[in-house]
């Protein structure tokens, strides 16, 4: 994701032949996020290669000039129903320039039944991210949201779309909870025991795991978009603009402007809400495992990238009586790629995945 919302008019992207990079091990991970789609693969030198595609688009006037211009500028587009649809980060830039909202194939973490253009675009994006399987029946884990506690959604539709899509690409598709991916990616030192929280655009996903197995998982409909929406509302600006402000590099420990204060306010509210929901679940769930030792809480996802995030979490955490002892609260080293890496771990370890 770009830190500065700008279109680089200078850099002409050379046409990229479909990747013929290093030889890859079988097994792929796909992070199906509201804001970003990421794929994760492994080569034979213990490198993980992550590809990122911003999951947003905007439609603009179509003509030959823009078509050529966009390709020269390295901006992806699709012509669909006679509309020119710009995909990815530049959609955000264009939204900022035109003071419009971007369109999202997914809302609240799920493929949106209301975005009629979403399906073919999503198909294209996934195809481009994953490429063909390296061997027949290669396992691909794709992330799905956990059952939400604060809104209704149809995960089946979502799962159906993606498993169908992956199957048609030649993969053996398997779904995995988004926060379970966080556990696979970040809690190996603790035998995959602890609490993983994935802080995405559309939602937050929580997974409490005991020795790799999810014991409790749920999601909430509040995430980065929720912050954008609310900040936009109080400041009287568009969400895309609020998002750009937020991603520009705010430090929650030291909000300097009215805008940053608004962002801080909603971040705190979001964190408080999430922690207290986990607490509630711990207190009301019956079959929670007994953790012999204190556990870690680890955060991942783009929304956790803001400066001072963990400080605010610790601050809010200290104000509540949490039902189990916590050893450490930390953020994933690379929060954006965590889910894709976790899904990749799950895929590579799956007994159905063809061994090389």
């Amino acid at each position, binding site marked *: 994701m770009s830190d500065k919302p700008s279109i680089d008019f200078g850099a002409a992207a050379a046409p990229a032949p479909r990747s013929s990079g290093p030889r890859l091990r079988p097994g792929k991970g796909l992070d199906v996020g509201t804001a970003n789609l990421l794929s994760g693969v492994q080569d034979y030198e213990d490198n993980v290669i992550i590809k990122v595609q911003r999951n947003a688009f905007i439609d603009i006037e179509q003509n030959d000039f823009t078509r050529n211009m966009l390709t020269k500028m390295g901006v992806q587009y699709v012509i669909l129903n006679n509309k020119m649809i710009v995909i990815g980060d530049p959609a955000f830039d264009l939204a900022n320039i035109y003071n419009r909202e971007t369109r999202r194939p997914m809302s609240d973490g799920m493929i949106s039944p209301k975005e009629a253009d979403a399906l073919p675009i999503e198909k294209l994006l996934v195809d481009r991210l994953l490429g063909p399987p390296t061997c027949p029946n290669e396992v691909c884990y794709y992330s799905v949201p956990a059952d939400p506690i604060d809104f209704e959604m149809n995960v089946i539709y979502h799962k159906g*779309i993606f498993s*169908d899509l992956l199957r048609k690409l030649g993969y053996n598709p398997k779904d995995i909870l988004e926060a379970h991916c966080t556990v696979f990616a970040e809690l190996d030192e603790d035998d995959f025991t602890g609490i993983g929280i994935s802080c995405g655009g559309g939602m937050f996903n929580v997974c409490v795991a005991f020795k790799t197995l999810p014991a409790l998982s749920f999601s909430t409909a509040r995430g980065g978009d929720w912050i954008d929406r609310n900040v936009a509302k109080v400041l009287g600006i568009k969400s895309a603009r609020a998002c750009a402000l937020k991603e520009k590099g705010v430090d929650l420990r030291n909000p300097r402007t009215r805008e940053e204060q608004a962002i801080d306010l909603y971040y705190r509210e979001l964190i408080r809400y999430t922690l207290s929901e986990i607490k509630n679940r711990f207190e009301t769930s019956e079959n929670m495992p007994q953790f012999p030792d204190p556990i870690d809480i680890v955060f991942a996802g783009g929304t956790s990238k803001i400066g001072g995030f963990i400080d605010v979490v610790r601050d809010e955490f200290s104000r509540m009586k949490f039902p189990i002892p916590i050893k450490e609260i930390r953020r994933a080293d690379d929060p954006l790629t965590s889910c894709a890496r976790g899904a990749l771990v799950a895929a*590579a370890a799956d007994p159905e995945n063809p061994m090389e």
Partner: protein
Amino acid sequence: MDPDLKREVLDVRKVIERSTSKVSLRDLEKKGFRQVKVLRAGDINQLIFKAVQNVLAKAPRGGMDEEERQKILQEAKNDFSRMMAEKKDLVAKQEQIQQAHQNLQGKLTQVNQQLAAEKNAILAERQQFERDKQSLMESSLQGQQSAAANFTGQIEDLRQSASKAEARAEAAEAKALSAEGAIPKDEYDQLRRRMNTQLEDAQEDVERYRKQIRTLEEEQEGQIKKLKGDKINAEEGESRAQTKIKTLDEDKTRLEEEVSRLRAELAEASVSSGSGGISADHDAEFQRLRMEMEQRSARMQDMMAGIANSLVESRSDGGGGGDFSKQFESLQKNITSAMRKATGAAGGNDDFELTVEQASAIFAQYDNVKLETNIDNVDLKTIKAKGINSKLAKLRNLQRGG
């Protein structure tokens, strides 16, 4: 120069010309003139003009005074600039009207295209609906027939069993009767008792078979009734869908009428180029029209999607041999909910509740669509991340129960 004044001057010149006589140069020389001062006609004119002006200026009553002159001059100037402004205005208005005209034409084309596209979509959707309905009906008929044949076969079997049992009973009776008297009494009684139990058994069998036949017949009747009911339900649902399509059609006709009305207005507007306020009115009208069209097409899309879904569903349930009442039920339910959504009735959740099969069926329509895109020509953002081998080793170890 003021044209009136000029005329006066010319008149004066004429007077002068008439009152002078021509003398030849030779005669002048004879009279001792060596040099002659020559006054050109233009100079004379100038002089006379000045003189006249002076006279006019000095004569208090004879001509206009300076103030009056200035006033008249000013009026003339004002008149002139008013005329210029008017002309400019007129040109601008003409341009405006031309622009409005062009805008309207563009919008009309757009609306027309939209209409045509919608018309085609409805047509295609309806044809598909008809085809699907046909195959659904056919498969239901087949099912009904095979179910009936099945029942009939069972009943026939039971009938045969019953008559066999009856025959057995009769045979036993006959045996008992024929044996009477031919054998010793106690032996006969024993035989009789045995025959009687056999007879009772056989009669019980018959009774049981009869009962089974009755229940089967009742069941069959019920089943047929239900199938008929289902069919009626489905037909009702379908006729409601047809009605909806009809109202949409009517909507469209109304819209088309409105378009032609607008077109007429447009034509009129371009004729009476004087009125400047038309473009705003038309814009508002078009805005409204566009909005209405968008709303309606959104609703229609919802409904079409709903109907398509119900068809997808009934198809994927496997036409023929399946549970038809279930098929009809789901068709019914889906059409109802599609209607509800389309008509905007309260209480509707506007997300589709799609199953995996539906999702896949819906996706199928994009399978062969070739989109124009440069997506393959643009590099994706790629990140190299830390390896996962140690994680994998740990995980495999745990999975093995380590």
